[in-house]
């Protein structure tokens, strides 16, 4: 099993969700996060005092999938989240050892 994690622009979140749903993904965990990469932050001015705000708001999506599906899901996310401009975010895949469904106790592939 694999954990697919994507950090994307907040305004692309709805596009990504629809694309994943269309490709058969039935569940995911989503959180609002903040961070920065090459995009850096922005400046804000309060009563003439300029502040560099380094953290940029992002949406993080986490999906646990079968090994065989991981590449296709990464491609789906890329297709929906890409704007071509700086700050589009990142997607990465990591191995998962065990998954248990809390309600039934089903393990691993049966729990996905």
């Amino acid at each position, binding site marked *: 099993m694999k954990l697919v994690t994507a950090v994307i622009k907040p305004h692309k979140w709805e596009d990504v969700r629809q694309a994943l749903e269309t490709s058969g993904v039935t569940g995911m965990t989503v959180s609002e996060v903040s961070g920065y990469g090459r995009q850096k932050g922005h400046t804000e001015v*309060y*009563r*003439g005092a*300029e502040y560099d705000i380094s953290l940029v708001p992002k949406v993080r999506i986490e999906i646990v999938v079968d090994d065989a599906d991981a590449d296709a899901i990464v491609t789906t996310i890329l297709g929906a989240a890409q704007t071509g401009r700086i700050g589009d975010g990142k997607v990465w895949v990591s191995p998962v050892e065990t998954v248990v469904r809390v309600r039934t106790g089903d393990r691993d592939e049966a729990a996905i």
Partner: protein
Amino acid sequence: MTALPAFAATVPDSGDTAWLLAASALVLLMAPGLALFYGGMVRSKSVLNMIMMTFGALAVIVIVWVLVGYSLAFGDDLGAGLLGDPFQHFGLSDLMAAGDSAVPTILFAVFQGLFCVITGALISGAIADRARFGAWLVYVAVWTVVVYAPVAHWIFDFSAGEHVGGWMANRVGVLDFAGGTAVEICSGASALALAIVLGPRLGFGRDAMRPHNLTLVMLGAGLLWFGWFGFNAGSALGANQSAAVVFAATLVAGAAGTLGWLSVERLRDGHATSLGAASGMVAGLVAITPSCGSLSPIGAIVMGAVAGGICAWAVGLKYTFGYDDSLDVVGVHMVGGIVGTLGIGLIATAAAPTGVDGLLYGGGADQLGKQTIGVGAVLVYSFVISGIIGLIVDKAMGFRIDGEHEVSGIDLIVHAETAYDLHATAGARSSGSGLFGGLHSGDHRDEEDE
């Protein structure tokens, strides 16, 4: 401010009394307005303390005012025009029976007490995030007696009949309709001294200390403007032509102040900001406070716009000089108060209620000279005495909280509260009610220093 109008009968004038009752309530509303205005400007970890400094000042000042403050400010002068008889109206007990004025004197005493509340609460903006609550209350109580009451006596207490008032209003003839000196310059200069005594917030000039809730700031600013009509037009002490002229000036100056500040921002920083709109509005109102009885509506436009522009520039001075006047009490109230009080000497018109022409209306430099004396005296006196009180309180009980607590947030350590519970997963659980479940009131009790 004018002298209390005399009235033949022992029955107060109902119209005048009704207006001053309402105006007093409007001035009281400025306190929560100021609390929200200030509270939104600090970071979320210290918003409760910011609000509590205003509510605490409100409670303390009202009591001190009734006991002794009103007598010091409006009792018969002790000799040099500096101070009233402190025991003349102790507890306002002698004002229970109707007197011979059109407005009951006890109502006048309440109205004036609320001016002191706003002036004291304004100071707290200079010491955001870092002052011990108990020390603040002690400071503000002493300040009411030693700073505000004398200054109010100088400028607001008019001689009438047997009664002898203060030196600035009666001997010099300084014009200050609603408190450019006693309220605005006094609060700003007191705040500057206190900011210097306490020292800057940890991380001042390095960390981004941006406002955590600008919608609160805008709501507070709106309430302040609403209350300011009671403040200025109420100072006419009657429901009459003067009150109406002052009311118009108060409306006009707030609008012009908003545009003045936003213009500077747009040209200098590239954007017209909501904080700038709220600040400009307040700056315009500050400047019109002393001058609302002396200007034409066109004069009020000029006054508001100039004050908005100058204050937008003046709030940057703290970075140049390195004092942490956290929410710009100096840049807005002291500077705006000076602009408004001196401006009377320039653009006052005899057609307005105070009936004096300024320099640009052909009245000569005479009034400008008087205004300068008033500004200088209140500025120096408030700054020096506030600083001395601050130093004594700091020596006696410590004015600042620990650096560690300042960084983690003053709300938790001083008040054992958190302003916003936005996450159900914060891990809060009850440890029994205070009445029946023992004395455990929270995990932070051990660290409590208040």
